[in-house]
């Protein structure tokens, strides 16, 4: 039984994991880099260990140091969160070697799924539909060119070891191929340390639909339905929802069964996500397995009522799944918006600095998974995700309206966020209709630079504040307030 968990992460996901552990009476150990000493996850954990300098490779990516720290504090398990070492098979292997329970899949399953080409071959063997494309690693431009011709342009060039869109290139015709290959390999090398690339058929205007799965170590696998994550900016999901408007019960069941087949064929255990592309003819293609807890897991939690982090821990404990597929239902509709420290006026570049004030939206069916508070510095070293705002509604429109009001209340002052952008997306007529394809943002917000409609009111408010500040400065400090309870020492205790 897991009694003490080290959380090898930071920010909102570390906070999320700590809360689940605390409710299970499991002790938590946070790790933190030198710039994170005042962070929320450090505050909430039962114990916190300084792990190194700010640079990720010296702290949150430092496998040796993290393993040593886990041993030092006698943690019997490590939760990796998402990002950092969450899908690093070497880290999982080191935990296995050291006898630390890695809360996630085995290093073997992770290694298999981490290689896009290998996993693709496994899926083909398991009769899982994949995007037409290469069956082997490319070695030369000639190989790629031959494949591209066989698949038919446009094709998509992807990094073999990658994810998150890094190294990815759309190639419209043969003469673009060489340039795309070189750039893709360079990016793949620097992002993943591996420059292998491969090709596949480019699916136009697809939806991104993924299935949440849970697999215990006794061979039981269930899925918790889909999430649609088509709203992406630069291949980064920013809005996710469940259910997807594109699925009917028949298709949902078929995709769910396929997801379970993917998991079984790869020997995967713990929580994972099977990603698909869904084309406009409702054909779906396996993309990859995210071998970790996803950023967007709360939308599934909201519609199914299942706590995925607690399930992860129970599975890591060797427990059998108590949930059965036939008991699971999707109830209502959930939407998540990711809140990033990004400046919409400045090409969405990270917006760094001190957070001066936060007004968090609260209310029925509003959940806010946040890693910030007023007074904290947003540093340049890490992913600029600040929080995730998740709402549930009886139906999609109910949830969407709730999200709108929640975004309007989510004041974060001192840095910029993309909240204004999120608000405009969820108010867009095509979003309301559910016409959400992965090209939604380039199509509908090609050059979005923000809106200044309330600027005049902002100036009025600033003037009132300036006026009052100035008045206080001029007149406020003339009198000295003496409070007798503070300054006089002669107390006598009365009989009562």
């Amino acid at each position: 039984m897991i009694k003490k968990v080290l959380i090898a992460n930071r920010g909102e996901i570390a906070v999320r994991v700590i809360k689940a552990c605390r409710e299970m009476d499991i002790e938590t150990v946070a790790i933190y880099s030198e710039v994170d000493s005042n962070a929320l996850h450090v505050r909430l954990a039962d114990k916190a260990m300084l792990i190194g300098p700010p640079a990720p490779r010296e702290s949150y990516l430092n496998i040796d140091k993290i393993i040593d720290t886990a041993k030092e504090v006698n943690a019997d398990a490590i939760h990796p969160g998402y990002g950092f070492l969450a899908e690093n098979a070497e880290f999982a292997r080191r935990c296995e070697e050291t006898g630390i329970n890695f809360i996630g899949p085995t290093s073997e399953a992770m290694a298999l799924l981490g290689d896009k080409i290998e996993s693709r071959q496994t899926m083909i063997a398991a009769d899982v539909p994949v995007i037409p494309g290469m069956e082997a690693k490319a070695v030369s431009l000639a190989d790629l060119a031959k494949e591209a011709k066989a698949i038919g342009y446009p094709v998509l060039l992807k990094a073999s070891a990658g994810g998150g869109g890094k190294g990815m290139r759309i190639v419209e015709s043969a003469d673009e191929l060489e340039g795309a290959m070189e750039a893709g390999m360079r990016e793949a090398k620097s992002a993943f340390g591996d420059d292998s690339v491969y090709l596949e058929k480019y699916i136009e205007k697809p939806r991104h639909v993924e299935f949440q799965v849970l697999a215990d170590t006794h061979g039981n696998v269930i899925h918790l339905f889909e999430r649609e994550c088509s709203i992406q900016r630069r291949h980064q999901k920013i809005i996710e929802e469940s259910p997807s408007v594109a699925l009917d019960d028949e298709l949902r069941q078929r995709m769910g069964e396929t997801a379970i087949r993917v998991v079984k064929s790869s020997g995967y255990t713990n929580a994972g996500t099977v990603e698909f592309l869904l084309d406009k003819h409702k054909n779906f293609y396996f993309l990859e397995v995210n071998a970790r807890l996803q950023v967007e897991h709360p939308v599934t939690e909201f519609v199914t009522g299942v706590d995925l982090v607690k399930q992860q821990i129970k599975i890591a404990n060797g427990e059998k799944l108590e949930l059965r597929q036939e008991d699971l239902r999707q109830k209502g509709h959930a939407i998540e918006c990711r809140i990033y420290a990004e400046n919409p006026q400045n090409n969405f570049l990270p917006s760094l600095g001190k957070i001066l004030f936060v007004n968090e939206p609260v209310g029925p069916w509003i959940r806010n998974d946040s890693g910030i508070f007023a007074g904290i510095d947003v540093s340049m070293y890490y992913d600029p995700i600040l929080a995730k705002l998740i709402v549930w509604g009886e139906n999609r429109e109910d949830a969407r309206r709730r999200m709108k009001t929640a975004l309007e209340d989510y004041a974060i002052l001192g840095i910029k966020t993309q909240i204004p952008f999120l608000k405009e997306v969820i108010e867009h007529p095509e979003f309301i209709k559910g016409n959400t394809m992965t090209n939604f943002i380039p199509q509908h917000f090609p050059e979005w630079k923000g809106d200044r409609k309330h600027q005049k009111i902002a100036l009025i408010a600033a003037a009132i504040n300036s006026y009052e500040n100035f008045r206080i400065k001029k007149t406020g400090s003339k009198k000295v307030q003496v409070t007798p309870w503070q300054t006089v020492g002669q107390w006598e205790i009365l009989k009562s």
Partner: protein
Amino acid sequence: MEFEYKTADTLHSVSIEKKEDAYVISTGDDSITISPRQLLPNFMSLDIDGKTTKVYFARSDGKIYVFINGYQYELLDIVRESQTTVSKDHAHMEGEAEISAPMPGKILKIFVKEGDEIKVKQKLLIVEAMKMENSITAPIDGTVKRINFKEGDLVDTGQPIIEIE
């Protein structure tokens, strides 16, 4: 440094010294050495006997409010003469002061009247609050400009009792 706090009807003395990043604190018989993991304006995290305690606190009008793990504590901060010298000097400079009530209480006695010339440390009034009597003396030399209450009156937080010019 020595501080005194009152809870309900008990007085507690706490001595504290700082050595590098750690505080050495004695609350009576025993003494512990502690360095807060986080020390924010309204929060600190304390490791005591291998266990971490999250402490929320706020300070207002001579009281310290503390929240630990679902439990709440209200400490009356009994500040010693030595610690108030600075602010009294300041008061001297400005030559104007206002005696106000930092918490609800009852005025038991008033020794001066409007127009009186008064000297520093002269006894002005006695106030009862939190089941204790408190003699209040003049923080500065001056003239009593205004007395807003009479003996027996109840005063509420922040209400000015006596103004001195």
